[in-house]
């Protein structure tokens, strides 16, 4: 039990992350090797709904132990901003990242992004029948044969908030009612959507690009599509880093944040989990989509997060009824 000792050394940094350990750990280990700064991490995943890290950050508010929060989406960092748990930070490294993917006050900075995509099983669904728009899912021919993850958790929550923000409450509610009438399958998580499509239990489902690429690696029967490329575009969700207010190791925290925000990290994440770089000129492997070739949904992340709080009760009722 090597870790039963008091850790208040200066040459360390504490990071909490909701990005899957399989992808985040190699980045943190590389920083440790290159900087000589010991990284002590707490991992969590969307699969466990990030119960651990976010609730821990909230509970630790009065005496923060964490220096950096690396989130897989912009939704959670806005909760931290609203609760005064994060602090502003400006990184020169991120200057060439579009302002859309950064908080105006510096409470979070976005980098490597995922998109919400449709995955489908080629054996169950003919190429010509694959929906091209999210609104096609309310079409009778997909009845009971498509899935979304529980919209109370994870990136699906943010996707729905973005839809409400973009379409307005009335249209968005009508769309959700149409999905319900079309017997949408509500899966426990994006991973569950991926698994059901891979297994051919359902024809298609909404998930994130990293899940989609993982599914395509595992099975030749799975295809992926960016929806609404002739319409409102696909939702882009950057990873984000935030500095924690009163972080115990502030200098190391800033070094780690700069490292995470670097082009090198984006290149590594593009290889390991098909994330799309937000810096310009980052080389990506063949087959990995680039933001230059996707029509993104135009949203304001802060506004969508406010919308999220507003619609959560409605979403809960929608799921339960």
């Amino acid at each position: 039990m090597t870790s039963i000792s008091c850790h208040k050394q200066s040459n360390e940094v504490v990071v909490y992350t909701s990005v899957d350990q399989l992808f985040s750990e190699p980045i943190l280990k590389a920083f440790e090797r290159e900087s000589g700064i010991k990284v002590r991490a707490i991992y969590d995943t969307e699969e466990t709904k990030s119960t651990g890290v976010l609730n821990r950050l909230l509970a630790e508010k009065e005496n923060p132990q964490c220096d950096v929060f690396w989130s897989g989406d912009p939704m959670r960092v806005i909760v931290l901003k609203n609760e005064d748990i994060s602090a502003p930070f400006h990184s020169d490294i991120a200057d060439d990242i579009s302002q859309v993917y950064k908080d105006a006050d510096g409470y979070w900075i976005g980098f490597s992004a995922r998109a919400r995509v449709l995955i489908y099983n080629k054996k169950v669904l003919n190429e010509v029948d694959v929906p091209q728009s999210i609104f096609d899912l309310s079409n009778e021919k997909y009845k009971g044969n498509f899935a979304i993850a529980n919209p109370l958790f994870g990136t699906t929550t943010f996707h729905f908030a973005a839809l409400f923000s973009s379409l307005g409450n009335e249209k968005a509610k009508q769309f959700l009612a149409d999905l319900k009438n079309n017997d949408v399958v509500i899966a426990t998580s994006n991973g569950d959507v991926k698994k059901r499509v891979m297994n051919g239990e359902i024809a298609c489902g909404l998930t994130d690009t990293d899940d989609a690429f993982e599914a395509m690696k595992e099975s030749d029967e799975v295809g992926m599509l960016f929806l609404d490329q002739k319409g409102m575009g696909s939702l882009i969700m950057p990873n984000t880093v935030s500095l924690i207010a009163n972080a115990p190791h502030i200098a190391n925290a800033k070094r780690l944040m700069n490292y995470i925000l670097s082009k090198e990290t984006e290149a590594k994440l593009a290889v390991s989990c098909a994330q799309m770089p937000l810096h310009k000129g980052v080389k990506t492997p063949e087959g990995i989509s680039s933001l230059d070739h996707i029509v993104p949904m135009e949203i304001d992340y802060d506004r969508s997060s406010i919308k999220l709080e507003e619609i959560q009760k409605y979403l809960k009722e929608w799921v339960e009824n």
Partner: protein
Amino acid sequence: MGRKLVKQPLFTIVYLSFVLMIVAPIVYTIGTAFFSEKIGVELTQAFQGRTIFLLLKSSLIAAIIAFFSTIIGTFLGFLLYKTKIPFQGFFKVSLLIPLLISPYIFAVAWKDIFLFFFRDSTILPSYLTCILVMIIVFSPLAMLITGSAFMHINKQFEESALMVTSFRKMILKVILPLIKPSLISSFVLIFIFSISEFSVPALFGVKVFTTEIFTQFSAFYNHSMAILQSLLLILICVFLLYAERKHLADLPFLSIGSKGSSSKIYVLKKGEFFSLSFLFLWLSVSMIFPVTILFIQSFKNGVGAFIQAFDLMMPTFIDSIALSFVAALLIVFVGFVAAFSASNKPDLRMGKSFNYLLLFVFAVPSTILGISLIKFYNQPGLEMIYTTYAIILIAFVGKFSFIAAKIIGDALKGYPKSLDEAARIAGATFSIRIRKILIPMILPVLFLAFMVAFIFSLGDLGTSIMLYPPGTELMPIKVFTIMANAPQDLINSMTLIVFLTTLILIIGLYMIAKLMIRKYNCAYD
């Protein structure tokens, strides 16, 4: 009472430590929920009709699971502990294996089984699948509890009954009433485990009370609401355990070893084939299918995934095993102190209250326990606890000491006081009486309590994921944080490794304990 406490320094220290280190943080956290700004609205919402209906629905599901688990467990217990049946030893051990697997992993395996055979993981309605999986998971517990009771039935009762009535009537009128306390204990414990279980209903999309609490925590980040709702769950669990304790105050719950047992063993004639078939069928359902599916999926693409899984799990082994070992020792110690004080000093009020406090903490949901300990220990000056494994040890002692106290307490009830009296009259000090008489007598039970505490600590996820110190890694947490996006064969390999590690550890510890118990008993014969 003050003088009594001075005379019991060890008890007083352990009791006060438990109160200050574990109970106080929980009470403080629950108390703060009542001082939330929105307490009026939250109280109304927490106790509104819909919530109560959900609680009743969850209670009904838990009752169905507890009822059928107890029936199946009792039947298995009867076959394995009251009859002479081939491969008895093998079935006794292998049918307990589902208790070693996390219910979540078990549920995932069963989803895969449905998919493997029917190409559809949702072939059965989600409620039914959820209930069936939980019955499979908890039946071994009922088997263990009732099996112990079967072993301790005095054969004179059975033989007398068989002289005047049929075998069937003897079972109904003699054996079942005699094991009634174990049946009740089994039902109550499984009910509590089922109603508190979150992962299995969540996986099958079954909305129960725990998923509602989880939603308040993780979707709304509304801690005070989640705490208020948890209170309802805590009240139900405490009430049931209290009622069970009152009703069965002096009756044994679980004991091991057949020393001194004079129970009658039946030879099955016509029924042997049917009984063996049932045992094999249950073994297939509860172990062979899930473990086989894990094997198949782990190695479907060769050994690469298994090797990768092993590399990923390597850093977690030492910490997880050492932490669970230390936790189990502490849990047995606290459980022993609590049980001993309640059994030997019934006039000591704090002895009784200690057991009720253990019961209360046992009923507190893992997330509430985690949040409570974070808020209490995350203070300047307490880093030695908060930033180390000490915080998890505290949580485990709080969560699992009740079970240890219950197992040990029941053994102490059967301990003949005359032995202690005789030794005292002969001039043996308290310490000598404990070390040389009591401990050798109940050593197998202490070992059982240790094993149970060890298994629970090794497999805990709910509390430890809230508390594990940055930079450390534990087995269940590693599996859960990797499984979100990892390929299926890697996830199954990791699960298989956790399962095999637990199994090897338990067999190893069992062998060591067997040797130790024999050596200890020989030394004092």
